[in-house]
């Protein structure tokens, strides 16, 4: 098993600070600034790579991946509803979280591959942006099926929801970063911007993971409720999605590195974009449950154990050693 990246140790540092009730607090403004920075940086990197490809070459895979990602909640929903005994709203909402993606998990995946010097298609951030949305729609539909007819109040404002999702800052920053990165690649002017956006990326990620550790620690209590189910689901489901992502990457002829990243994307679970969307789409769902599950179980599992496992899966798939 490859060594754990030092950067993810900052997550543990945050969790421990939370558990021993240290007075350590990351200023809100720093957390928000870094999340803006990370999304732009991921976008720039992706756009820059994309400029070296023929968009037409990337398009078919993109569309297929978007479509299949939308199906993930269809698998998650029945498990949550009938095995986990969650109510309809929560089941749909959690399913949407798992269908969507986490940019930070993605970033940890990139850091992992960079650490072992493995090549991957640079346009992966495009997939990150594309995979964020479709599952949110599926999850919302599942959460609301049948309810809208019974009461007028429950009616979803799809217009507002679409606006929220597509103008939501995470998607917007990613897409904006991709556009500017593409332009940078086209005019071949990368130089002075790389110092902030590329060189400092892992350092910024470290500080972000520290705060995420603090957040995760403060969310752990929710897991006690349906403890066993939540832990099993929070680990087994991303593993399944990761295997599915590996297969898809292989099927679409991605490089091993790209396949691993795709597995990470499928396995990752949103805790920023999805909660924001579900708040509007499925106000009856309890955010504490979905965020707690996502941040308290699946996120740490993915960054410490999941990522290396998806890489092992990929190597096995490609017959590498």
């Amino acid at each position, binding site marked *: 098993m490859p060594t754990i990246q030092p950067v993810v140790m900052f997550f543990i540092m945050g969790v421990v600070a939370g558990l021993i009730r240290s007075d350590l607090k990351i200023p*809100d403004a720093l*957390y*928000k600034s870094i999340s803006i920075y990370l999304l732009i940086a991921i976008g720039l990197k992706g756009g820059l790579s994309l400029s070296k490809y023929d968009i037409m070459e990337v398009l078919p895979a993109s569309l297929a991946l978007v479509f299949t990602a939308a199906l993930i909640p269809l698998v998650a929903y029945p498990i949550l509803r009938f095995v986990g005994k969650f109510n309809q709203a929560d089941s749909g909402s959690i399913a949407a979280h798992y269908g969507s993606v986490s940019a930070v998990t993605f970033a940890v995946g990139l850091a992992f591959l960079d650490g072992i010097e493995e090549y991957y298609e640079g346009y992966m951030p495009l997939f990150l942006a594309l995979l964020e949305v479709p599952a949110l729609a599926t999850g919302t539909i599942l959460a609301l099926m049948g309810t809208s007819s019974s009461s007028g109040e429950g009616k979803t404002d799809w217009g507002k929801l679409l606006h929220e999702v597509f103008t939501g800052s995470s998607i917007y920053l990613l897409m904006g970063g991709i556009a500017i990165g593409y332009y940078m690649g086209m005019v071949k002017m990368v130089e002075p911007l790389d110092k902030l956006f590329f060189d400092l990326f892992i350092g910024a990620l470290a500080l972000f993971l520290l*705060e995420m550790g603090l*957040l995760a620690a403060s969310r752990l209590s929710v897991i006690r409720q349906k403890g066993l189910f939540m832990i099993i689901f929070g680990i087994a489901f991303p593993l399944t999605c990761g295997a599915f992502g590996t297969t898809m990457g292989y099927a679409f002829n991605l490089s091993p590195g790209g396949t691993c990243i795709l597995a990470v994307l499928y396995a990752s679970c949103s*805790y*920023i974009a999805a*909660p924001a969307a579900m*708040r509007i789409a499925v106000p009856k769902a309890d*955010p504490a449950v979905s*965020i707690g599950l996502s*941040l308290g179980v699946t996120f740490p599992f993915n960054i410490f154990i999941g990522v290396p496992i998806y890489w092992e899966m990929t190597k096995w798939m490609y017959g590498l050693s």
Partner: protein
Amino acid sequence: MDSTIAMKRIEIVSDVEKLEEIAGLLADAGVRGYTVLKKAGGLGSRGTRSPDDVLWEEENVVIILACKEDQAAKIIKLIRPKLKEYGGMCLISDCEWVEGPAISY
């Protein structure tokens, strides 16, 4: 107390997202002064709301407003249906406006 005018003090608490709409309503009612405190949290029928949680920000706003009694009645009439829709609360109490600053009620 001399040089004071008997007035009503209205205190509205609502979601910060509704502030613009409420300000519009107040303008319609001819209100010429109010004070706004953001970053409020609280407990209510929709549970706890906290502006401090970076992953799930729910921010309330407190609007404080002093006006004459008839004006107050007008405001309440306009604001009541909105609060019914949004949630929040609205209190009225008696107060005295200390004369001195420019009239803005």
